[in-house]
């Protein structure tokens, strides 16, 4: 959980100051590479942190003036409700972060040679 919190904070800071969406892939990847303890944990940590961050941020904007644009976007993408858009933001980030955490760890396992995943 502490790992997830750390990733959450790092991601949050990067997102606040830069426009790049792919931090939700890059940060969990680096985390998996540097600190991953198992494939599952690396994926889960990234997914949890990024998913929670995007979900929370989307919910915040939804409530703070973005309800109209979310409704239009839901219409554009053929999604019923703007709140589904909020959930989709969380899921999208979780998916991207999960697979990149996993990729990061897999690379780490490669370099670590014989050291077993624990």
């Amino acid at each position, binding site marked *: 959980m502490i790992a997830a919190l750390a990733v959450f904070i790092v991601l949050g800071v990067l997102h606040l100051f830069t426009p790049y969406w792919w931090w939700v892939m890059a940060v969990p990847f680096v985390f998996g590479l540097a600190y991953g303890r198992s494939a599952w944990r690396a994926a889960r940590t990234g997914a949890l942190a990024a998913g929670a961050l995007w979900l929370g941020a989307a919910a915040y904007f939804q409530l703070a003036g973005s309800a*109209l644009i979310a409704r239009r976007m839901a219409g554009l993408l053929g999604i019923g409700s703007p709140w589904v858009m909020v959930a989709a933001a969380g899921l999208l980030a979780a998916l*991207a972060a999960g697979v990149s955490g996993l990729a990061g760890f897999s690379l780490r396992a490669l370099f670590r040679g014989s050291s077993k995943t624990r």
Partner: protein
Amino acid sequence: MRILRAVFAAALAAAVFWGLHFRHGLLPPLGKLVNPFAGFWRNGDRPDPALEVITLPGLRERVDVVWDDRRVPHIFARNDHDLYFAQGYLVARDRLWQMEFQTLYAAGRLSEVVGPAGLEHDRLQRRLGMTWAAERSAQAMAGDPVINGVVQAYADGVNSFIAGLRPHELPVEYKILDFRPEPWTKLKAALLLKYMAWTLSGHNTDLSQTRTRDALGEDFVRSLYPDFPPLLEPIIPRGADWGFQAAPQAADGAGEAPRTPQPPASVPAARDGEADPRGVGSNNWAVAGSRTRTGFPILCNDPHLNLTLPSIWYELQLTAPGVNVRGVTFAGAPGVIIGFNRDAAWGMTNLGADVLDWHRVRFRDSSRREYAYGGGWRPVIARNETIKVRGRRAVRDRVLYTHHGPVVRLEEEEAAEDWIPAGAAMRWAAHDPSVELKAVYLLNRGSSYGDFLEALRHFACPAQNFVYADAGGDIALWSNGRLPMRSPGQGRFLLDGSSPGDDWPGWIPWERNPHVLNPERGFVSSANQHPADETYPYRLGWDFSSFERGARINEVLAAGAGFTPRDMEDLQRDGLSLRARMLLPRLLSALRAATLAPEERRALEALERWDGVFAADSVAATLFDALWRALNERTWNDEKEAGLESVAWPMSNVFLDLALNRPDSPFFDDKTTPGVERFDDLILPAFQTALGRLGERLGPFGGAWRWGRARGTEIGHLGRLPGFGSGKLETPGGPAVVNATQRSSGPSWRMTVALGPEIRAWGILPGGQSGNPGSRFYDNAVADWVAGKTYELLFLESPDDPVPGAASRTELRGAR
């Protein structure tokens, strides 16, 4: 094993990245777009701060902006440069994507943004010479020091907004389509005007007229599509003393009386639609003080266009030493295009004169380097076009120009649009350089009829009916533009590109444009109809709007006195159909005499109770509209001429004249039956056809057939993004009535200006000020527009004037 797993995981991550980072066909780049920190979530609606201070390098002095409760900016600058700089900055802030998209559209550069889907459109725009025309006009602008300064200051303002734009602040359409704004230029300003010229003057029926003539003869064409149809209600009142005569070569059939249509042996199938496929319906008028309650003129204008969101127009007030003007403009055009100042008001409807011809080109050989002209050969000028296509290799095209203009479609090519003839060069007035913005600049500053005329000289294309009124009491109307003088018969059919005699012999001298100042009747008006009757010495075209709207406006204005602005707004909303008023008695008497099924009888009863008004809740309006169509179809559709797929329906003037005055015309005979039918024999079958169709489309007869639902209006998004439009609106108004609202077109701006010591004005646009689909000011006026309401247009003398309702301020400051 580990390697395999690593490769698999890396591939999976790469695939997810690829899937979310790029656009896939119509699917936007979801990662970028959904990112709450920079994606669409950031395009929300934030309340404006009460006072906002923005520092803009390039601004010379302070500019004060007051935003009224509808977010209309009232801009107070201390010099012209800052005025247009601020306009550029503020309009870009509200409408950047719209400005850019319209100019990309005009330039034939959509493929750069949307990919191969834009290719066909882009190729056509290149072939039409849109950028070539814009380059020539941009050059002309650069040659006028004042306008050059205005356009440059405006561009600098737009660019200062773009420079300060952070990624998360990009308009949402950029995020969806995944591209970035490029700098605004003078060329883009010119492209925008060419885009309007194309919309309003870039169409003709020369090809279909030629085909019809070739199949059925010129007499047929001249009788069904006469230069001057029956029931003519010209803009310039009859009996005008023109005070000049045309040069002899332009006296095409002058003084010729309308001829009674003589049907040929057979009549080809009609196109399903009106003679005027554009379906525009702009109106304007000015009433002299003798007919108003205050004793000062009132001026009205509702320009109709194909409606889109963001709104086509942007409302604003521009104030600087020497100018204080209020009204609407296009996003991308400096100044106020339709509006008023303290002393005068003006408005426009499209003139629709024929300023586009086609000249058949004979090339010397297959290299197409020379073409025949005047008994010799002339060199073809080729312009190479490169169309960049997103995600693909660029497409190249060579556009061939004769001295007439570009060859839009080569002999062997398919038609991009069915009215564009093959192997012909296009001669179009908008290809010639002109500086319409100069007219706008002068109109904004004008205070007298003399100033108005000085401005009009500069407005070439698209030619407009300019209405004018001032506090001094003058009212005027000018059908104004640069209009070709024509040789006899020229302009209706395809011309011979090798014959110098087929070239335009010149332009009608500007001061001879049809016009009227302070007519005795105490009002002037226009509704896209014929500008003048047969006595006007020049031929301007024939394909104008039918008489009904103009006649209705004139009838109401002529019958009344002591008019108030409210009366004028009632007329803008007027839904009475002259068609219905003229034709309905005849239809009803025929139907009453017929044996009807129960549902048919109920429909007849609805028609009998109808007042002829196209109201949103009127079932009878729906019935009449369907019946009108069915009658036209039965009149024109019953036979086909070999080699001719369709013939355009003649305008309603012709149809009504036949139905009412020549009901036994052979046109009404159904050639598929042995008997001989008259107009009255068509009515019952047409009625049954109409009912059958409506039943199929709308269900059983009843409230579901109401006009607002059966026709309705949808204001779509400019880039056709689903969910970004208005949805279906149950609007009143209809074909050939003053409120000429249609399925996708309608009054793009409604304005009523009461002149006098204290000027007052009202208006509404179908949308709002903001171009941001996430803002409540994107479509805040739509419901009131449907309901026919207007807002009083705040006109400030100083930024310190009291502003009713919630207002906020912006201070723009220059940087040292």
